[in-house]
């Protein structure tokens, strides 16, 4: 089956979209017209330049409403969430005891030059995030928080030296694609060292999606709004699957 969806303004399939942008043009009626033509050239119809104004010498800002003819087939989009397995802390601990039979060793870090530790700390630290305890609080996890600006090499060495089961990498800075570069480097180094299959590899950060993470060769990816138990449940379930397969 396929369900094509379009943006919804006030009527099904009207395709209404709001856009805003700056053009390097001094404002004039011609600049408004340039904005209109630009948006029309993008493929929109019914282009209304709602606002066009000078914001500085040689720059104008525009707010535009227009209709897109584009639709996507919502049914064909597969973006399974890594958060599928909702379990509480106690349930997860019990699950690990029963189905894994030993502690799970977890290491997390902000990799590359990234120093935004608040996100990974939210997942790892005892106190957790939004009322959800962090992984350190779980009885069946042994957790290492390596902190910020950890090179990919250092993290892989740590994993080898400490028999880590699950590696958690965070990237908050995304400028110039630095997040993807660093995540890729980590996955590749693990492959090169021949230990990729020994660890559950998890990526996280505000722009991360599970889909992107799997494309990058990770087991899972977690984005904005993640709470620790989302991650804990994933790790526990995935470990159990591995144990079962062995």
């Amino acid at each position: 089956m396929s369900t094509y969806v379009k943006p919804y303004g006030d009527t099904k399939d009207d395709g209404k979209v709001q856009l805003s942008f700056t053009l390097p043009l001094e404002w004039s009626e011609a600049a408004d017209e340039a904005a209109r033509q630009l948006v029309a050239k993008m493929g929109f119809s019914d282009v209304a330049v709602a606002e066009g104004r000078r914001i500085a010498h040689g720059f104008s800002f525009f707010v535009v409403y227009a209709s897109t003819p584009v639709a996507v087939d919502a049914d064909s989009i597969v973006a399974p969430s890594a958060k599928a397995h909702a379990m509480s802390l106690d349930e997860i601990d019990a699950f690990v005891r029963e189905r894994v039979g030993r502690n799970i060793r977890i290491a997390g870090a902000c990799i590359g030059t990234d120093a935004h530790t608040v996100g990974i700390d939210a997942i790892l630290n005892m106190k957790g995030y939004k009322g959800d305890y962090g992984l350190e609080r779980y009885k069946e996890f042994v957790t290492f928080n390596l902190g910020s600006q950890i090179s990919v090499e250092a993290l892989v060495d740590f994993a080898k030296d400490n028999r880590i089961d699950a590696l958690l990498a965070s990237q908050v800075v995304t400028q110039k694609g630095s997040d993807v570069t660093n995540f890729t480097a980590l996955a590749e180094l693990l492959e090169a060292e021949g230990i990729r299959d020994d660890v559950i590899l998890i990526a996280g950060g505000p722009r991360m999606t599970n889909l992107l993470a799997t494309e990058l060769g990770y087991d899972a990816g977690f984005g904005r709004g993640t709470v620790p138990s989302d991650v804990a449940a994933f790790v526990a379930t995935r470990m159990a699957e591995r144990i079962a397969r062995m």
Partner: protein
Amino acid sequence: MELRIDCALVADMRRLAREIANPIEDFIAAHGTVSVERAALRLLGVDGVGHGDVPLPNLVVERFGCERLGSGVVRPLGALVAETGRTPDDVAGAVGDGSLDVALADGVPETAARAALENYVARALARIDARRQERAALLGRLPQSPPPLLYVIVASGNIYEDRTAAIAAAEAGAQIIAVIRSTGQSLLDFVPYGATTEGFGGTYATQENFRIMREALDAVSERLGRYVMLTNYASGLCMPEIATMAALERLDMLLNDSMYGILFRDINMQRTFIDQHFSRMLNTRSGIIINTGEDNYLTTADAVEQASAVLASQFINEAFAHGAGMPDEQIGLGDAYEIDPSLENGFLFAVAQAQLARQCFPAAPLKYMPPTKHMTGDVFKGHLIDAMFNLTSVMTKQTIHLCGMMTEGIHTPFLGDRALALENARYVMSTARHFGDEISFKEDGIVERRAAAVLRDAHALLERVAERGLMASIEAKTFADVSRTPEGGRGFEGVFERAPDYWNPFEEALMPLASAAP
């Protein structure tokens, strides 16, 4: 956050407003309108359309009214009911299509005609009361969040898209949904029939549309565990009929102003005064909160200058509402945040005005309208102006809060616009929830001086109107800078002088309430 205001002046304004209303109410008591008659017919169960899609109430009034409109149309209808033993609706249909000779009514004795309708009148009132009790029960079981009650409009022009939008808005936090009606409906001298999927800037107010929306909102209220209110417009040439339909379909509020139609729609003033009186008696009985239209003074002229007109109008609206027996709790007096965003300290002026209204009408569920006039295509700036409006509202404890849309300057709201508007109101009103309770104003500062000036000017305005009389004042451009004459404007042909034997059983039934008024 009390302003020090001159309470004696406020009391005197209330006295002046009553003085202004008195002669108009005398006039009302001696006159009738076709729309009040049609409302009475609707209450008796006359509904549907006849030949050429003309609503039955219109057809009946036309037939009966040609000669003896002054006596009202209910008596002849009652006579025919007595004579034929058929229901009023049936009789109306037959009168409408000409299959029943209206002359048959002539011979029926007064008492028989009255008696034939007794049950129908009682049933109508019972249905209204039942709707009111239904509302009370629902509000008890599904309590609303505390005010300011967030109010949004739906205006796609298609009742089914409006329904989708209304449900979505309720889920996003709306507590009141207004279905905007199509441009110009207020000038139609009949109420369209059935579900409608067209209209400009809204779709028609019809009884079926009311029903569709009420049903959808009842369902969503149950789902959300809080009662979501529905509102529409009892305004224009069919004001009393819409009040009737709203009573029957359990709307919770109605836009209803004593002078809006006169000033802003050029509807005849006699017609408007009579219609609003009957509408308000009915609204009183059905427990419907009215919303007055003072915001309109501000959208068409300078908001700083018009401030006193707003306050004066609020007092006049209150007086007429009281005159129709309406308790303060149902009188949603209007105001709007229309001050020019580029005015330095404009926010202080808006706070002064809103707080002044709050103190002058402590028990009224004040209705606060959002910025519209100064909203441009810059949706980002617009969102901020709405935020300052939201802040003013929560600070001054407004009751009915129309959420401003960042796209006000562009189009009737999109579904997403409404969600953002509600988010705006919820955020600002939560983060500054008790700010108003925390502060007091500098004595004789900008805010207090502004409030005092507005009060003084409004008092002077009311004095002038009381002296000259309301109708003459309107003619002399006292309000909104327009002049209207007592015989001018739309719908004057539908006004009649009551004959000594004029009879309207609903007026009779609703009257006691009016005389018991404060």
